[in-house]
């Protein structure tokens, strides 16, 4: 088996053994179902004025801007800082540092994509069951929105991995990531010019793909995402390659 693939499986297995991963996957399935039941059958009659798609994208926003970044911080801290603390990060195995680094980052990426797809599936099924206004024609656009949301998430993952290699304590690493993320979310209110320089800005870029698509804006965003991913990946790998057991 290809070494990167084999070790990605190992890293996914490690993350799946954690309660937080199971909880996130469970939330991705249960939150859309509960929301639909609440909106359509209980007291939230005012919400019924909202089109189904708006509720679906609000659910996507909840995961993309809050739950998934929080999970990324926990997972990257566990796979890098935590393993460094426990002495499991570097072992005598036939895998190069680059392969090890890529497979750990891939594992986080694959799990976040799985969460997004599980959420999308849950949203679609619960919409089909509970929403009177549900239309099958909206399924493709909805899937597209969930999938494109994954790309800025990968950039946030590379950013979190880079930070987890700089900081040697798990507690400090995760708190720093949360504080930095909150700063990234709120600083544009104080300094509007920084808005497009922050990777957190692009978490809801799926909105750009709905309705009239501005290709200029899309190209600019893709260029930003690729270059920031390359920057975070390179710094992260440089730090990882210098680590000694």
């Amino acid at each position: 088996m290809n070494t990167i693939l084999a070790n990605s499986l190992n890293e996914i297995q490690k993350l799946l053994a954690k309660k937080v991963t199971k909880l996130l996957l469970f939330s991705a399935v249960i939150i859309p179902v509960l929301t639909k039941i609440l909106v359509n059958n209980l007291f939230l009659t005012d919400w019924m004025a909202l089109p189904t798609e708006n509720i679906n994208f609000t659910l996507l926003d909840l995961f993309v801007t809050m739950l998934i970044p929080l999970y990324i911080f926990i997972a990257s801290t566990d796979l890098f800082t935590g393993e460094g603390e426990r002495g499991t990060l570097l072992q005598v195995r036939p895998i190069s540092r680059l392969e090890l680094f890529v497979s750990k980052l891939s594992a986080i990426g694959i799990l976040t994509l799985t969460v997004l797809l599980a959420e999308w599936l849950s949203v679609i099924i619960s919409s089909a069951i509970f929403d009177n206004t549900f239309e099958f024609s909206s399924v493709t656009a909805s899937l597209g929105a969930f999938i494109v949301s994954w790309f800025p998430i990968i950039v946030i993952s590379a950013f979190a991995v880079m930070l987890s290699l700089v900081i040697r304590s798990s507690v400090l690493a995760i708190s720093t990531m949360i504080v930095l993320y909150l700063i990234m979310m709120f600083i544009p209110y104080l300094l509007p010019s920084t808005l497009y320089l922050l990777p957190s800005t692009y978490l809801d870029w799926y909105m750009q793909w709905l309705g009239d698509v501005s290709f200029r804006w899309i190209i600019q965003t893709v260029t930003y995402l690729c270059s920031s991913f390359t920057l975070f990946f390179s710094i992260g790998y440089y730090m990882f390659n210098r680590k000694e057991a």
Partner: protein
Amino acid sequence: MEKAVVITGLTKQYGNGRGIQDINLSIDQGEIVGILGPNGAGKTTLLKCMTGLTSPDQGSVELFGADLQSNFKNAITPVGALIGPAVAYENMSPYKNLKMISRLYSGITHEDIEQALCLTGLTSYKDEKISSFSMGMKQRFGIASALISKPRLIILDEPTNGLDIDGLLLLRKTIQEISSKSGVTFVISSHHISELEKLCNRFCFLIQGQASFYETRNQSLEDVYIMKVEEACR
């Protein structure tokens, strides 16, 4: 005779002045080499440099003819190692841990995993979480993880740490059996002179980062060790 290990001019110095200096060492296939030295002499540093866990400042390490720096995967594939405390994902069972290790090698079967667990006396604990293990059982797992890939060179750093008498006897028997049946090379560091004396056919004394060798057994190993330490202190 094929060379299992060739170390040339290996130097690694830490900020506190400790480390190893200009180590030259050649080990033939099938030898069992014991590394002896006081605390802080550089035994673990030497073994870490031999396995790529630490980069040396100078010098080179060749394992079965493959250079560790430039040809890492080929050099490290035939090596099994237990360096420092046993490394494991503690919220998983020994079986799952070994299964994960097996994915990184070709041809390791379910039977190989079972055999490694059996050799280390962990068969009846194979589905328990490692977090519930005692230090000795964790050490047994560490040895199983070094044996799982059926390596041609096994590097063990203080393998008897935390082992009970049963574990100690089982380890000694396993090393002797593997060495005589498969011609596997062993490099073992330990504080227990008597344990190494029973197992090894060549010794490397590492004192203040410098290496010297002893091959014959005209004198007791303890006497030679004391002599070497005194020489180094003069």
